[in-house]
């Protein structure tokens, strides 16, 4: 009844990930062997016909868009039920239904219009800076999410669930900030050193669960969760130490990072977008190359698909686990570094990295754990974040709605069978929609 991986797809299309192949490959191949007629030649369909067929099939893009639509519908319901004025109109909905509908429409459409204006383009904006401002904001929020998303995605491909991107980013931000204000270095060198420090901080925090997993079999999910909290407490401790805490302030805030260590802004001082987004694209490219073109990437995917088979083939599973977690930690550490070296903040505070690690998990899942998919997913999440800010200040809709939307999108993505059932989609030609990757405890 609820086969998550409909085997109706053509056998030559490879499933989305190696993990899937490991999970379902046998069944797929078995099915094709017994029914070779499946791909019997028919009249060749036209390109336009194919496009229309695929449009309403459960392919990645369609499911993603529909998941977004579903999430926004649920969000709309939340907006309506949390607005006492609108809710009041529902008290007499049988008498005057138009009142309730109009009021609901007004509040929801205004909120989502502001979301769009804050994230993409505001038609009423005048001038170069104002017109570019939403995009600039979106890209600013996107950059660190790309890094944490890549971190989680890379670990997933190696068969590990890195919930610790949050902690790794925290260690990254600590070291990057300390390097940023404690070392007297010339401009470009300082930035590079601070970024390396951030990456190293994350790498250490990734190494620990990696080595524990490899040596003792301790589950990385538990260890990364625990290390997240250890990192949080470490951050709250180090902020108030002498030499770190800002001497002019009584509250928990560190000294500001030197301007020589700051990531340069791309479009002038009035727009917040900074070079972090360029680094993010570069990192995406690098991870895509690593995964698909390098020996390490091959080994990593093999281990992720089936560690026993990989070991039999002579791949060191231990080494791969450790390496995967170290690289994942480095990526998350770099993402964290941007929170002080970029334009979001320039000093450590207890909440300096916000939720970028946890959001990274959602980004990785939404991006189907592929590097370029992660980039696009991060762009969507960055846009939601940027738009959410405007929605909060203009429509008074709490920013938390964005968290709800993000979580809902991923829930719908994670269960493509549900979206398919709701919209009565056809099965896609290739069964590529399964996000189940980690394997329980």
């Amino acid at each position: 009844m609820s086969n998550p991986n409909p085997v109706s797809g053509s056998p030559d299309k490879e499933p989305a990930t190696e993990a899937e192949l490991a999970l379902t490959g046998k069944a797929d191949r078995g099915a094709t062997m017994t029914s070779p007629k499946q791909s019997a030649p028919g009249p060749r369909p036209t390109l336009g016909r194919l496009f229309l067929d695929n449009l309403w099939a459960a392919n990645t893009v369609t499911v993603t868009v529909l998941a977004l639509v579903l999430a926004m519908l649920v969000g709309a319901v939340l907006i309506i039920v949390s607005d006492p004025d609108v809710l009041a109109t529902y008290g007499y909905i049988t008498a005057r239904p138009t009142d309730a509908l109009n009021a609901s429409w007004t509040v929801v459409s205004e909120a989502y219009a502001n979301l769009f204006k804050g994230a993409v383009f505001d038609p009423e904006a005048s001038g170069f800076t104002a017109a570019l401002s939403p995009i600039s904001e979106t890209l600013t929020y996107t950059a660190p999410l790309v890094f944490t998303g890549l971190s989680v995605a890379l670990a997933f491909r190696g068969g590990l669930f890195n919930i610790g991107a949050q902690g790794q980013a925290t260690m990254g931000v600590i070291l990057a900030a300390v390097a940023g204000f404690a070392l007297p270095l010339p401009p470009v060198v300082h930035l590079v050193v601070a970024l390396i420090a951030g990456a190293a901080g994350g790498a250490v925090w990734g190494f620990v669960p990696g080595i524990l997993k490899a040596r003792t079999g301790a589950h990385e999910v538990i260890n990364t969760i625990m290390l997240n909290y250890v990192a949080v407490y470490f951050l709250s401790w180090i902020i108030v130490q002498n030499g770190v805490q800002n001497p002019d302030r009584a509250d928990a805030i560190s000294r500001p990072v030197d301007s020589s260590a700051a990531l340069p802004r791309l479009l002038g001082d009035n727009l917040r977008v900074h070079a972090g987004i360029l680094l993010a694209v570069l990192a995406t490219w690098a991870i895509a190359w690593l995964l698909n073109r390098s020996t390490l990437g091959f080994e990593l995917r093999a281990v992720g698909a089936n560690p026993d088979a990989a070991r039999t083939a002579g791949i060191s599973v231990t080494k791969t686990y450790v390496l995967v977690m170290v690289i994942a930690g480095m990526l998350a550490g770099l993402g964290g570094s941007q929170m002080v070296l970029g334009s979001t903040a320039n000093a450590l505070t207890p909440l300096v990295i916000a939720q970028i690690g946890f959001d990274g998990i959602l980004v990785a899942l939404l991006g189907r754990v592929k590097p370029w998919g992660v980039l696009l997913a991060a762009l969507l999440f960055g846009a939601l974040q940027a738009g959410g800010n405007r929605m909060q200040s203009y429509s008074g809709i709490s920013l938390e709605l964005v968290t709800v939307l993000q979580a809902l999108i991923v829930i719908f993505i994670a269960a493509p069978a549900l979206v398919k059932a709701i919209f009565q989609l056809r099965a896609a030609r290739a069964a590529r929609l399964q996000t189940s990757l980690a394997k329980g405890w």
Partner: protein
Amino acid sequence: MSTTAVPDVAVAAVDEGFWTRPRKVGAVLLALGVLATVLFGALATGQQARFTLSETEGGAALEIQGTLGAILFGVVAAGAGGALLAGVPKRWFTLVLGVGLVAFVLSFLCWQVSAAPEGRNFMPMVNIVRGTFVLALPLIFGALAGVLCERSGVVNVAIEGQLLMGAFSGALFGSLSGNVWVGLVAAAVGGAFISLLLAVFAIRYLVDQVVMGVVLNLLAVGVTGFLYERLMQTDADKYNSAPRFGNWEIPLLKDIPLLGPALFRGNIFLYLGLLLVLVIHLALFRTRWGLRTRSVGEHPTAADTLGVKVLSLRYRNVLLAGVVAGIGGASYTLALYSFTKNMIGGKGFIALAALIFGRWSPTGALLAALFFGFADQLATYLGAIGSSIPNQFLAMLPYLATILAVAGLVGRVRAPAADGKPYVKG
């Protein structure tokens, strides 16, 4: 833990030759004991360390000179470690280890209490015990929710979300109705709502359960945070002023020294939590339901063959877990505080740690929760007496202990065999 994924590396931790696990533990304990004797002994002052059996400075007290106590208990801990290293009969292992660890903690306390400023060099044990239970309470409920889920084969990382939703819905409906019992029921329903999502997606749609748990936590944070800002912040009187359960004193028992005032003058949640540990323990190991639950968690195919309805049992247990966690969430909003954004603040994850630390058993979870609660309470207490140890490091303790536990240093832990694996009939 995950031995299926990496069999060979995981087995490497098995005892080999002279260095059996008791010996390794003994060596660590011996090192700790020596450390306590030397370091704590040197740092402790000549002041008295008083452990009063009341809430204040007065009353009956156990008293020991600081340096003497630190060294004495340090030597006891080292002795216990040495005994383990020399080799003790297996049945004595837990007892000796327990004595050693308690002695180590006492040595530490002698140092800390004696080093406190004059006039504050006492530790009110009633407060400590009571605080331990208060802080452990959400962990107990959360870990029990985990036991129910994971014993039947569904990984529950969503404990945090269940607690939070329970706390929120308890506060909201408790305020709207003005009735604590309505609030309590609503809290249970709120927790069960998150559980329902977990169950449907994990069991019906076969979504990875860890992923689903993480996402549901974020969803719960988002939904409760959103509604908090929209409703509770704008009109706290109407939406966020739930009535609270008072404390119920249990006659006779409340007069037991130390335990009486700490344990038997609490609120309904304290009694309910302790009762649930007992009930779930008995149900899990002594009833037909428990046997079926455990079999579904270990080997669903075999259970199915014998006629157990695997999926419906899993649905029921996951929902039940939501009810338990929801009530745990209400232990905040219907007894102590009004609702605030993200008020559970990671307790759900410590509950998960307690579940693992307690090896997936209700009583183990209770002990682990109490240990974490004690660490938490100790951090507060040491902060209050101006300890030289930063309380952030004490706050890290539960998390570090869990890492050590799952790494096999404090004994191996093993999850139910089918935990996290969806069951597809066929």
